[in-house]
Structures are given as structure tokens and as C-alpha cells.
């Protein structure tokens, strides 16, 4: 799956980073708590979140996440967008809520990466 595929599946729009659209993504996670995101250090490529502050970008940066999906139609402020641009992270926004956004991507074959023990 690519970032463009995610955009299509979620009927989303790019905030920035369309040029990264053909990059492959392997696993995703969805959370509003950044420490939960940080708890799985294995390759994660996509973060779905309803949170819109610069720490979302920082968290993605630390994790080598290349795409952030903002759910419920959210769009972060200019400072947050600028930080993402600097880090080369694609930002997209979808009208779906968290549960359905994750569900749709899962249905299309995207997985969580971390196994439940």
C-alpha cells in the first residue's frame, strides 16, 4: 500500500507531502496518546490521530513515521504543518472518525505491526 492508496481509501486530502505519495507503507497505528505510539519501536509507517499539535510531528519523527492521517477532518495549525514539511512527513486529513479510518485501512490489508501478547 502507498500513501496515495491510503488517501484514496479514506477519501482524504493532502495537507502537505503529496510528493511522497508513492512511498510504500507497511504498518500503522492509531492513537491520541503519543507515549502509546512510542511504545512500539518496530517499523511503523503511518500514524492515525485526532491530535493536532507539534508533538504529533515530533513523535512521528522519532519513530520514522512517514505519513500522519488526521481523523475527523482535523487540520493542524501552520506551525505544526511547517514542522512536518521540514521533516519530510506527509500529512493527510480524512472526515472519517478514528475507528472507521483504522477499520477501512485494516480491511484493505494494512496491519498494526505489533503483535498482541
Amino acid at each position, binding site marked *: 500500500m502507498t500513501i496515495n492508496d491510503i488517501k484514496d481509501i479514506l477519501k482524504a486530502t493532502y495537507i502537505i507531502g503529496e510528493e511522497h505519495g508513492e512511498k510504500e507503507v507497511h504498518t500503522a497505528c492509531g492513537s491520541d*496518546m503519543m507515549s502509546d505510539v*512510542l*511504545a512500539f519501536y518496530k517499523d511503523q509507517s503511518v500514524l492515525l490521530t485526532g*491530535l493536532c499539535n507539534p*508533538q504529533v510531528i515530533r513523535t512521528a519523527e*522519532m519513530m520514522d513515521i512517514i505519513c500522519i492521517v488526521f481523523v475527523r477532518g482535523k487540520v493542524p495549525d501552520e506551525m505544526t504543518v511547517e514542522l512536518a514539511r521540514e521533516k519530510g512527513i506527509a500529512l493527510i486529513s480524512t472526515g472519517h472518525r478514528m475507528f472507521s479510518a483504522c477499520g477501512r485501512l485494516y480491511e484493505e490489508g494494512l496491519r498494526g505491526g505489533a503483535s498482541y501478547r
Partner: protein
Amino acid sequence: MNDQIVLHYEIPSDDFTRAGEASSNVKKKLKKMGFDPEIVRRVAITMYEGEINMIIHANGGYIDVIITLDKIEIIFNDSGPGIENIELAMSAGFSTAPDNIRSLGFGAGMGLPNMKNYSDEINVESKIGKGTKVYAKILVTKRID
């Protein structure tokens, strides 16, 4: 690379929006030096959680990072309120963070547990009213897990 590289970062007291700049800088440097991406990620996350803690719990402080070919050490120092019960603070889910911090995406009580998971050695020393010192060491060997 020289025998050892030492980096020093002053962490401002209350600027949550800038939290993570120091960790980002270290990450960039380690990447450039050619360390394994997984090692770099572990260092970055450990440092980031510590940096965030310093800002939300301790009014800032400073961080020293010592880089050698076989290990990376991160030493966090602050003069904040200190931690009353270190064992409790290290347990998953324990947090004294106020609601406004939680609404910013932190305060799930997973910071110290994450730092412990990602480092090969961690040591927390704290004195109430004096401050907290956290030492974390990450060995530069690939983990098999």
C-alpha cells in the same frame, strides 16, 4: 569518529511546543554517523520521553549525550520537584500529569516504562525538592527480539 562525542542540551522550562528539539538533533547526528536505524530510534525515543518529562514535570533541565562506537549514554538532570516513589513512577500507567497535558497527548504514564524498555540500562535518582537524575544507556548491538 573520535573516541567519544559529548553533546549538551539545555531544555527550556515550559515551552511544550519546542519539546523534542534536542532529541531531534541527536537523532539527526546519529543517523549521519551511520548508526543502525533501530538503535537510532531507540535512542531518539528514550531521549524524547525524558525531554518531555523534564518539561512537563520538572521545569526543564539539561541533557548530556555521550556517544561512542559501542554505546550511547543519555544523562538527564533537572532541579524539579523530584519523584516520591521511583518504583511506582516506573510502572506502566502511573502518571501525575494534569489533564491539560493529557489533552496534548502525553501523561499516559508510559514515558519511564518506554525509556526502560528501549535502554539496556536505566537508573533513576531523585530527591524530593531537589531534582531528578536519569541515566540511560543503549548498547550499539542489534537486539534479537
